[in-house]
């Protein structure tokens, strides 16, 4: 097992470095001199020169990357061009909000998806099965930002039941566990849950259906095992695959919530990126993308290890 973990680490570390190179390169994709993207447009030439020196833009690219990475490892992701505050502080404030929202959406989407997909897998070919399959296709085809708008139209604009924007009353930008804040979370969480719900339901249905068609299930039935005990076997065999898909989906919820956060003005990392894009705040954009991508990589790594613990066949394979 330890050897397997080490092998995975040896695979993940280069990927993480590659991710950091891509994030570093992002700023260099910007047309024109890089320093122009970092200093205000009306800065005097001396300041521009000073900034070029300070940031090391006069150095060769590999040196620049090394300096940037060294600072990033120490938690220094530069300063926001607009607010002047450290990027790392901005991200840590926003990340909590995104995480809570993703968690709520995951709980909702995963539990419903497991339930619906599981039943559909048991009742292959039934009306319920076709219904779930149809719902799954709908889930993956929905532009989720549009679903958010539709929910706002129905539940905020028309019925006036739930708030449409923000994380809490009076522009609160820090999430708390109380009813006022929970109310703000319902619509964005439901919106975000639509995609994982569809994908989990589809996966669980396929996996359960496949397991039930295996010969060993027939053997279990033949030797007189009750349906409850057979269900235990099904869950044990389905767990690794379903877990892997859930891990990926949770990562997508964190990294892909930018559009939904924009619709609901949810003060998370997605909203932060949106602001950064509108104001051309490149250090903020770069830092947020780096943090989210590295989180995604670590999450996949964790799921990978967990999956191997659950399914010894992978280790041997």
């Amino acid at each position, binding site marked *: 097992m330890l050897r397997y973990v080490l092998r995975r680490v040896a695979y993940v570390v280069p990927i993480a470095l*590659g991710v950091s190179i891509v994030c570093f390169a*992002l700023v260099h*994709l*910007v047309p024109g001199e890089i320093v122009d993207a970092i200093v205000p447009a009306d800065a005097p030439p001396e300041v521009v020169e000073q900034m070029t020196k300070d940031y090391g833009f006069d150095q060769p690219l590999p040196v620049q990357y090394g300096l940037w990475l060294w600072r990033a490892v120490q938690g220094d992701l530069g300063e926001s061009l607009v607010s002047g505050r450290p990027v790392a502080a901005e991200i840590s404030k926003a990340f909590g909000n995104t995480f809570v929202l993703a968690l709520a959406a995951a709980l909702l989407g995963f539990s419903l998806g497991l339930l619906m997909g599981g039943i559909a897998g048991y009742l292959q070919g039934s009306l319920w099965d076709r219904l779930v399959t149809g719902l799954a*296709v709908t889930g993956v*085809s*929905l532009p989720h930002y549009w679903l958010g708008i539709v929910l706002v*139209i129905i539940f905020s604009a028309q019925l006036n039941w739930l708030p449409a924007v923000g994380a809490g009353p009076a522009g609160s930008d820090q999430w708390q566990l109380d009813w006022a804040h929970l109310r703000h979370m319902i619509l964005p969480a439901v919106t975000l849950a639509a995609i994982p719900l569809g994908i989990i339901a589809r996966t669980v249905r396929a996996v359960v259906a496949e397991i039930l068609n295996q010969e060993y299930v027939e053997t279990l039935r033949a030797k007189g095992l009750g349906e409850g005990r057979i269900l235990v076997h099904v869950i044990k065999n389905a767990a690794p695959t379903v877990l892997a898909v859930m891990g990926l989906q949770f990562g*997508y919820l964190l990294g892909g919530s930018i559009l939904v956060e924009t619709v609901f003005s949810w003060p998370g990392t997605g909203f932060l990126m949106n602001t950064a894009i509108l104001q051309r705040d490149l250090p903020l954009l770069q830092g947020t993308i780096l943090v*989210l991508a590295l989180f995604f990589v670590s999450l996949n790594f964790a799921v990978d290890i967990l999956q191997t613990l659950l399914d010894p066949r992978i280790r041997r394979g």
Partner: protein
Amino acid sequence: MNDLAPTAERLQEAREFAGLKPEGYWQGVFKRLRRDPITVGAALVVLLIALAAVFAPWLPLADPYDGRIVQRLKPIGTEGMPLGGDELGRDMLSRLIYGGRLSLFMGIAPVVAAFLIGTTLGVLAGYLGGRTNMAIMRTVDVFYAFPSILLAIAISGALGAGLTNTLISLTVVFIPPLTRIAESVTTSVRGLDFVDAARASGASHLAVIRTHVLGNVVGPIFIYATSLVSVSMILAAGLSFIGLGVKPPEPEWGLMLNTLRTAIYVDPVLAALPGVMIFVVSICFNLMSDGLRSAMDVKL
């Protein structure tokens, strides 16, 4: 729509598919497709929207750029404006039909580009193996490590708004999954006996790749690519929605969804219309892709 990853299951399916392909295979596929009412229906809807978009300038439609302030947010069914007017008083029906041009283009073009590049890279990696494989596949893995939408936003955000930049960023997003499938199928085909036999009987590498490898690889990748069109459309419209894609005043569904957001309290149905178009086309592409998969997947 975030389900970009070709699952282990999907990769296995692609490899199995590559192994066996009986005579008259494509006739069989078309016959099965024609008998599948859902696929035929979905294809007809897409065809209708695409034809309307392509021939929009010749249809009796109002100018999609011509706004009149008196027609601002006119409700659906107004005289002369069957679907009402948008926030600048432009004809909604005309803008929705014209919008199909850019939206469909941005759904299909990046997938086609990524299909060509990804297949080339994957076949090269799979056929040559060794260090070339390492270099290509590890680079692909790095881009794969980003959630698709995050990568699209990262590249578009750095390059700035605009049609070309959106096309570039979406193409980059779709290359990794297509390369992975192409590599996986090529590697398994290369190990089969008939490839060795072809090489032994004097076929050049190019001939082997063209007839044996490509012939087997293109099918599975094509199925997968069709399912990416809906992802591409949703992502492209999403980029426009946050101001990173097409710029105003172009009619494009994602951008229209954004600019009409101010109208959700005045005319909610109107504000939701562009999203209906994205949703309908995207679900049709997904249904077509599902139909194609089951029609092409011959389990002997």
